[in-house]
C-alpha cells in the first residue's frame, strides 16, 4: 500500500521490557490456578459455591491468556473490542441457551413423565 494512512498516530515504544519473565510468571500462575481448581472440586462446600469458584478461576485464566500471552494488553484496544464482541455474543448465546433449557418447560419427556 502506498500511502501511510494513519501517519499521525502516535508510536508507542514504551514496552520494550523483556516479556520473557512475564510470560514465565504467568505460565506458573496458570499452572497453580489449575492445581487449585482440581483441589476445589473435592472440597465439601455447597455445589453452587464450587461451581462459581470454578467459573471465576477459569475466567481468570482465560483473561490472563488473552491479555498476556495473546498480547491484548499491549495491542491496540481495537483488537480487544473485536474479540470481546465475539466473546460476549458467544457467551450470551450460551447463557441464554442454558437458561432456556434449564426452564421446566424444556425438560425432556423422560424426566417429566415417570
Amino acid at each position, binding site marked *: 500500500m502506498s500511502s501511510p494512512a494513519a501517519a499521525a498516530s502516535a508510536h508507542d515504544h514504551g514496552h520494550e521490557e523483556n516479556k520473557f519473565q512475564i510470560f514465565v510468571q504467568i505460565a506458573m500462575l496458570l499452572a497453580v490456578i489449575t492445581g487449585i481448581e482440581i483441589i476445589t472440586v473435592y472440597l465439601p462446600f455447597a455445589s453452587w459455591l464450587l461451581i462459581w469458584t470454578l467459573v471465576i478461576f477459569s475466567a481468570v485464566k482465560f483473561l490472563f491468556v488473552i491479555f498476556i500471552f495473546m498480547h491484548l494488553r499491549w495491542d491496540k484496544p481495537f483488537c480487544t473490542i473485536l474479540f470481546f464482541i465475539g466473546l460476549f455474543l458467544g457467551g450470551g448465546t450460551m447463557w441464554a441457551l442454558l437458561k432456556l433449557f434449564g426452564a421446566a418447560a*424444556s*425438560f*425432556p*419427556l*423422560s424426566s*417429566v*413423565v415417570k
Partner: protein
Amino acid sequence: MRWPILSAKSTALRAKTAIALAGAALLPGCSWIRAFDLNGHQSTIDVEGPVARTQTNLFYVTCWVTLVLFIIVGAVLAYAMVRFRAKTEADEHAVPPPQGHGNPLVEVGLISGAVLALVIIAVPTVKGIFYTYDVPEVQKGEAYQVTATGYQWWFKFEYPAEQIAGHGALTTGNELVIPAGRPIHINLRSMDVMHSFWVPKLAGKVDMIPNRANLLWLEAEHPGYYWGQCAEFCGESHAVMRFRVIALAPSEFNAWLNSQMAPARDAHPGAQPATAEATAQFASVRSFGQNETGATGAFEVSPLDAWRRKQLPDSNEDPALIARGRELFSEKTCSTCHTIRGNPSAVGIVGPELTHVGSRSSIAGGLLDNTPEQLRRWIHNPEAVKPGNKMWVTGYVPNHITLSAGDEVCLVSYLESLK
C-alpha cells in the same frame, strides 16, 4: 352461511376485519374484498373460544397500531415524494438544495413515538402470553384432560380420565370430541417427527415435539364442529395431516363417552336393525385424485348434525358382509396395525384405533369424508390418497396386501358398522 352458530356474529366481525385489513389493502374494487371473507373453516378471525379470542384481539391491537403508524408515516412519505419531486429535467440540474445533515430533536421525538406504540402492543402481549399458556388457576379444577399424539400423518387422542379395563385409556383417532364450555388441557406428544396441533377457531397452535412435554389449552364456547390441521412441516403428506374437533354439550359428551367406552358393536346376523338414516356430507375432499373443485362449502345440514347422525348405525347394513369383513380384517393383516376392542385379533397399535371408526365423520387423518365410497377408496389404495402414508409403506407394500372388489365391500361394511 347456513349455520346458525356463525351467522349471528360473523357480520360484525367481518365488518371489523374489513376495516382493519382492507383499509391497508388499497384494493381496487369490492369484488376483491369478497375474496377475503375471513370466515373459512379455519379462520383465525372468526373465533369461537376464549384462547383464540385473546389471540385475535391482540392481533387487532397490533393491526390497528401498525395501521395508524402506516398511515402517518406513509402520509409523510407520500407528501415528501410529491412535494419535493423535481418536476422537470432542468429542475434536476438546478442548484442543489441546502445540504442539511439532520436534526437530533426530530430523531428523539420519533424514537419516543415508536417506543410508545410498542408499549401499547407489549402490554396486552405479555398479558396474553400468561393467559394463553395454561388453564387459568381458577379453572384448573374443572379442566378436562386429553393427550394428543402426532404421527406421520395422523393424530391419536387419548382420554386418560376414561380408563377401560384391559385396554388403558379410551383412544380415538383424528377426531377429538370435547365437552363445550369447559377448559380442555391437552398434552401434546409426538412419536416421530415434529408436528403442530392447530384448531384455528379454538386456539393458536402449539408444536408436538419428540422428547418434549408440551401442552395447550382451549375451550369451545358452544357445541360445534371445528377443522384442524397439522401446522409444522412433517414430511411428505404434511399437507393432508388434518383432524377435527367436535365440541358437545356436557350431557351429550357423556353419552358419547359411554358409547365409545363400549367395545365395538357386533352387528351379527339377527341383531337389532338400526333405526335412523344417516347420510351426511362433510365437505372434505370429495374426489381426491381428479382435479375437481371438491365440495361446495354449503352443507345440507350443519356439520355438527351430520356428525351426530353418524353416531347411529345405518339401517340398511348387511350383517353377512359385515361378518365377512370382520374375518378379512384379520386375514389381510389389518389387525396387526389397528386395534378394535371386541375383536380379539385386532390389537395393533401402529395405526389409528378403529373400535368406533364408523362413528367418525372423517377418515385418513381428517382428509376424507367417512362415506362408504371414500372408505373404499382409502383401503383400496391409500398411497393414491395420501402419498407416503405408513399404512401403505409399512403395511400394504411389504405385506403384499391386495384387496379384491368384494373384499373391499365387506371391509367397508364392517368398518362402517363400527359405531
